[in-house]
């Protein structure tokens, strides 16, 4: 059993971008929506389309991404969407507008307790789903389109210290080794009658039965660590700034994408804080559509 990365090299616009560009644009999108607290659909729809375009440009095969999409959509629609629809909380107070027309109500007889769905809450839930997808879609594409071997270099070039970047690089190098150790341990325990596929009992019993796998691999890794420390000390690690083997260079497309991301962030901040545009409101066309 080896850890298989979801990454595959593809000749796409998204994969030709510098990894730093991907992270910067993702952060710009998240910050544009969260820092000035944008809830206006006129901002949300273009931002969602911007994220969706990036996701589609990545050209990830359906068979690769369907499981992830399934889990993310369950999370977004059933947990976040339903939470917005039923409670109306977690966003602007305008979503709880008491004057908003009620479209569904089920109260416990004799009490004020129950479910009340208003047009305002429904619109809020839809906005909420769109908002989360706008932030999640570019993040979801990362594992499939960003080479794991470039993470350390990318973080270093984004200003993270040598030591933290090297930790990330080293972790990715260790991963196949420990996965291999885990395979050997599983095989060795199987030879003793241990069946990982048939862990019976309750949750506590299952955890206890995982100990014969987790303990040997963890202990072996601590031994490996001492050897690696000796090797790195012999090569004078941590005595002077490091050089990095992989080089990253921005291309014109990277400047374009970063410029676009920063412009989106600034536009959201200026319009919200400078002109008061971008807050939550229910558009008239939606109210008319629901009420007929």
């Amino acid at each position: 059993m080896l850890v298989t990365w979801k990454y595959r090299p593809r000749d796409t616009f998204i994969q030709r971008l510098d990894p730093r560009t991907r992270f910067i644009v993702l952060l710009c999108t998240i910050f544009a929506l969260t820092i000035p607290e944008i809830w206006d659909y006129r901002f949300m729809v273009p931002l969602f389309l911007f994220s969706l375009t990036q996701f589609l440009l990545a050209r990830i095969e359906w068979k690769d991404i369907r499981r992830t999409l399934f889990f993310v959509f369950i999370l977004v629609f059933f947990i976040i969407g339903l939470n917005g629809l039923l409670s109306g909380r977690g966003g602007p107070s305008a979503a709880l507008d008491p004057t908003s027309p009620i479209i569904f109500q089920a109260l416990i007889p004799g009490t004020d307790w129950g479910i009340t769905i208003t047009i305002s809450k429904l619109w809020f839930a839809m906005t909420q789903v769109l908002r989360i997808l706008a932030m999640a879609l570019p993040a979801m594409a990362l594992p499939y389109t960003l080479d794991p071997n470039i993470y350390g270099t990318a973080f270093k070039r984004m200003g993270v210290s040598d030591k933290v970047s090297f930790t990330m690089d080293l972790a990715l190098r260790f991963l196949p080794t420990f996965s291999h150790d885990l395979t050997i341990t599983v095989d060795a325990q199987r030879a003793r009658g241990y069946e990982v596929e048939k862990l019976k009992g309750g949750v506590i019993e299952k955890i206890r039965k995982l100990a014969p796998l987790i303990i040997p691999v963890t202990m072996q890794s601590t031994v490996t660590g001492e050897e690696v420390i000796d090797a790195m000390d012999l090569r004078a690690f941590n005595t002077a700034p490091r050089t990095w083997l992989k080089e990253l260079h921005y291309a014109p497309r990277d400047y374009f994408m970063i410029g676009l991301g920063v412009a989106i962030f600034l536009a959201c901040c200026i319009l919200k804080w400078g002109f008061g545009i971008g807050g939550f409101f229910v558009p008239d066309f939606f109210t008319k559509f629901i009420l007929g």
Partner: protein
Amino acid sequence: MNNNSTWEFGTRQVVYGAIGAALYGALSWFTNFLAIPAAGNISFRPAVAVLIFFGVAYGPIVGLLAGFIGNTIGDQASGYGFYWNWSLGNGLMGMVPGLISAAITDFKAQSQIIKAVGWGVLGIIVGMLFASLTEMFTSGIDLATAITGYFVPTLISNTVNVAILLPILMIAFAGMAARRGR
């Protein structure tokens, strides 16, 4: 076992941070088949015990790096994407028990194991509370959903994992360190 000052960040911390991260990522991926009933979006991770063990054994910097990078790797290997608040929450979960690392001198002693488990649970509370509460800003959920939908399931599952596996890891580590003389 603990010859360094608590906040030292040298070669040892880099290497054990990387090892902790790789182990946390690999074991999280391996145990993905264990799901938490009624909380489908949160996976059940026995590997949390390994993360907290690295914090307790090697200090807060190692715990922070192992948690942050390990969660990022685990999510990348599973194809879930990059969620900075959960990665940082996992980092805090490893860092907080690391604060007690200087006081853990005998990994076999019952009192010290209890202390490590207690700090581990504190780490889980701090880390998962941070991640759950930041979901209010990133996902726009309300406080009740953040607590009942995210914090409580992760707190319970991680606490159970740590209470069972951390003592075993500490005793195994004490035996191995005694044999190696480090």
